[in-house]
Structure formats: structure tokens, C-alpha cells
């Protein structure tokens, strides 16, 4: 593989890494605060793509407005799911919420099949995202650059919210102890709602870039990135924001670079990736940043 080809693959890998990373952060945020693996997260991601699709194609929103509309709607959907499916179960054993989240996942998928239809739809890709940037011999998709830039902005924004704002502090406190948090005057319900809004909004942003990359959207499109991101969050150390991001990054890199490096084995891509991840977990059973699970970020 030549240098220019390598650079192309690298940029591609980094951008996919960020997409998985942002979805994984959604898992980590929710897990960190409420200790729940939200299996519906991948389907929230899928819903985000449909919100944007309909805003753009059906209602004729300009592309950027459709994206913003999609992010807001997805955040609201996340808040709604928590209210309906998890909050009533909060005082019961955690396994109940887990099962509820699996149910919510099926519900969203089947809702999408019935209401949006099972056929694939073309996600609108604006002209500026279709461009290819040529630097000497290196050809880079514009969408990859946008993905990387916006993902970095999202990570910075998230870090700022967690570290510098009142609601971020409330989230960090909640991740250690609900009862004491209440006695510090924290509104637990509102903070959890915000956590779901934030996690879902991140899923929506990554859904935009995922759909720009693979512009066919369908009701089960959330499964693949959703399960990928969940694994990334576990490899990173579930509950750790940094871990989720790095886990996602690792997964995205492997997904692109392994078949690029060994094209003759590309059929074994999934097997190779998961073999590597199993090895990571054998040596670091709590994930790469698992020991920080309580601290997050």
C-alpha cells in the first residue's frame, strides 16, 4: 500500500472511528449516570436519520435545518423513552430496565417498519459533502473531514458541559450516589432527562455523518453501529467517556484499516476485529479505562 493510499484509508478510518465513538459516548453517559445499558440507543440513532430524512424530503427543510430539527427531535425522543420505559422501573432491580430497553429497541424498529416502511430510502447528501478533496496524490472525501471536525467540536462541547456547567456537575455527582445527590439539592429526574437528551443528541449527530457515508437508511440501520458502539463502550470501560471515545475510535480504525492492510482476508474482517477485542478484554477485564468508571470523563 502506497503512502497516499494509506493516508486516504487513515482519514477514512479516523472519521468512522469518531462516528462509533460518539455513539459509544451515548452508552457511556447513560450507563455512567443511571447504570443502565440502553439497548435502544442504536435505534434512537436510526430514528434520528428518519427525522432528518422526513424534515428534508417531505417537509422541504433546508439541509442544515433538517439536521438541527433531527437533533432536537432525537433528544426529545431520548427524554421520552426514559420517562416511559425506564423511569417507572428505576426503583426495581436494574435487570428490569435492561429488559425494558431491549423491548424499546424492538418497538422502535418495528414502529419504523410500519410507519416509515421497510424499503431503503436515500438520505439527502448536500453538494458540499459529495466533494472529494485532492491533495497531491491523496484523495479525501469531504464528508470525512466534516465528520472529524464536527466530532471534535462535539467532544469539546461535551467535556465543557460535564466539567464546567452546573448540570454537568449534577451528572457527575449523580454517577456516584443518587441519595447524596438529592441532599445536595440536585433534581435527579431532570438531570437524568438531560443525560438522555445529551446522549441522544450525540447519537443524532453521529447518525448524520453515518448516513452521509452510507446514504441508504432503513429501520434496522441502527443495529450495526449500535452494537459496535456498545462493544466500543465496553472495551473502553463502560461508564467512562474517554474510554467510550477511544474504544469507538479503535473499532472504527480496525474496521477500515484491517481489510485495507490485508485485502485477501477482508472476508474475515469481523472475526479479526472481535478476536482483537477479546484479547483486549482478557488483559484488561474492566476495559481500557474501566478503573475510572466511577469518575467518568
Amino acid at each position, binding site marked *: 500500500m502506497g503512502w497516499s493510499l494509506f493516508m486516504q484509508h487513515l482519514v477514512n478510518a479516523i472519521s468512522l472511528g469518531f462516528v462509533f465513538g460518539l455513539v459509544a459516548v451515548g452508552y457511556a453517559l447513560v450507563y455512567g449516570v443511571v447504570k443502565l445499558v440502553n439497548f435502544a440507543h442504536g435505534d434512537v440513532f436510526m430514528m434520528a436519520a428518519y427525522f432528518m430524512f422526513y424534515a428534508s424530503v417531505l417537509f422541504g427543510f433546508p439541509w442544515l435545518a433538517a439536521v438541527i430539527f433531527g437533533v432536537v427531535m432525537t433528544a426529545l425522543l431520548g427524554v421520552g423513552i426514559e420517562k416511559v420505559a425506564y423511569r417507572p422501573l428505576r426503583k426495581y432491580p436494574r435487570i428490569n430496565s435492561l429488559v425494558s430497553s431491549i423491548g424499546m429497541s424492538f418497538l422502535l424498529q418495528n414502529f419504523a417498519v410500519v410507519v416509515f416502511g421497510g424499503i431503503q430510502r436515500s438520505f439527502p447528501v448536500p453538494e458540499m459533502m459529495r466533494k472529494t478533496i485532492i491533495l497531491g496524490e491523496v484523495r479525501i472525501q469531504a464528508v470525512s473531514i466534516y465528520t472529524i471536525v464536527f466530532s471534535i467540536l462535539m467532544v469539546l462541547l461535551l467535556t*465543557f*458541559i460535564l466539567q*464546567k*456547567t*452546573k*448540570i454537568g*456537575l*449534577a451528572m457527575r*455527582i449523580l454517577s*456516584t*450516589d443518587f*441519595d*447524596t445527590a*438529592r*441532599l*445536595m*439539592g*440536585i*433534581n*435527579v429526574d431532570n438531570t437524568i432527562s438531560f443525560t438522555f437528551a445529551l446522549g441522544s443528541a450525540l447519537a443524532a449527530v453521529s447518525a448524520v455523518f453515518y448516513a452521509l457515508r452510507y446514504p441508504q437508511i432503513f429501520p434496522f440501520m441502527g443495529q450495526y453501529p449500535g452494537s459496535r458502539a456498545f462493544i466500543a463502550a465496553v472495551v473502553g470501560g463502560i461508564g467512562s467517556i474517554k474510554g467510550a471515545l477511544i474504544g469507538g475510535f479503535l473499532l472504527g480504525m480496525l474496521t477500515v484499516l484491517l481489510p485495507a492492510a490485508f485485502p485477501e482476508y477482508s472476508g474475515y474482517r469481523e472475526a479479526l476485529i472481535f478476536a482483537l477485542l477479546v484479547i483486549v478484554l482478557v488483559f484488561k477485564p474492566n476495559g481500557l479505562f474501566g478503573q475510572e468508571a*466511577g*469518575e467518568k470523563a
Partner: protein
Amino acid sequence: MILQAVEVERTTEPNVRQTVLKLEHVTKKFGGLVAVSDFNVDLKEGELLGLIGPNGAGKTTIFNLITHVIPVTEGKIEFYGKDITKLSTDRIIKLGIARTFQNIRLFSNMSVKENIMTAFHVHLKSDLFTAVAFLPKYREEEEFIQQKTWELMKEVGIEHLADHKSSSLPYGLQRKLEIARALATSPKLLLLDEPAAGMNPDETLELNQLILRIRERYKLTVIVIEHDMKVIMNISERIIVLDHGVTIAEGTPSEIQQNPLVIKAYLGVGDEDA
């Protein structure tokens, strides 16, 4: 901004003391078990009430009811004349009630300083957007918090441990840190749950002075649950004795010490300490 809130409502004449906390016929049942039965108290501003009784008498339950960690079964709780029986815990805390725990509950992975700052931050006015814009108000509040956190650490005597992990502190100091953290929420009413537990006699003596000092300085009304009679008898103005959820006696420390019911139920024979 934060501690100043305490100054409000202090303008009444000292001899007409306002009622801070009023519990009327408060009852808590857990299934068939009556944890607290028909509990009544009218607590005046600045008062220091001791709550004693054998294990399982329902003392901590009363704290849990006041702060709505658990709901009351029957009865009414008023704070400065406002019915708080059904308010959520966070609202009650914001009105000005703070507590410490029998089993210390600090944020163990945070430093001493951070534990206190955390409690201040909850009252911050800054929302996401003022913080983003780095408006002067945000800066001002940050500085204010730094300064007040320092004051509180000095107040309880842990300023030299500011950057230590809270879990690395000895037991007695952890209790003091918990008191400092409770003060940071700028309470008018402070509920202390066995503050002397695990302390040696010297530390206990110091704690007595600390409680009296902070009551004066922050104009607090205080309820103390304590097993250590040296604490209760020395600092309380009034004592309520519970046994199996029932109030069996109420009075000044000397009255309580002579009450035959109390001696029978709680002090028992041979408790020369009392």
C-alpha cells in the same frame, strides 16, 4: 450570594423566636411496622434539639421524613410556615435544610475541596449559556465559591487537607468534612446524624464546640441525633426521647436525666456517663 441568604428573615426580635420546623402528628409505617408514631415538634429559630433513643427508635427515620428521602404515612411537616410534606428532596434542600449521615456519605473519589465546592455549585445561578459566554457573573461566582469553600474548610479545621482524597481522611475528619459540605448548601436548619460516632473523647469535645460555634456564626437551628451522652447533654437545650417510634419524654437535659421512663427505656442501670 449564597450564605447571605441565611441573613434574610433574621430581623425579628430575638425574644419572639420564629418557628423554624414544625412536625404535626407525623407517622411512618413500613408495612405493619410503625417506625415513627405521632411525632410532634415545634422548633424555634436558633434552638438546638437533641434526639435520643435506643437503636431502632426511629431517629434517623425522622431525618429521612423531614428531607423527604422517604414519604410520611400521616402528618404534616412545615418549614418556616411552609408545608414541605410533599416537596421533593431537592426543593427542600434549596429551602434551607441540610443533613449529615450516620454512615458517612462523602463523594469518596473527590478531594476535600471538591466535596465542598460541589455543594456550593448546586446553588449556582450560572446556567450553560452564561458559562459558555464566560460572563463576569460566572467568574464572580467561581471566585465566591473558592473563597467560601476555603472559609468552611478553616471553620471545621481541615484546610490543610484541601487536596487530599476525602476517603483518605481519618473518620473524625470525614465527619467534619460532611458538616462543612452540609453548611455549603447554606442551610437554616442543620440535621446532624450521630456526628460523634467513631470519635475519641478529645475529638468529641472539639465537635461540641464546633457545633455551638457554627450555630452561632451561620445562625442555624440544629437537631442532633447522638448516642454519646456527653454530646447530647452538653449542647442540647431540649431533648426528645424516642423508643420504638413513640415519644416517651421531652424536656431539658436535666429533666431528661431524671425522668424515670427514660432511665428505664434508654439510659438503663449503671450509665454513669450520663
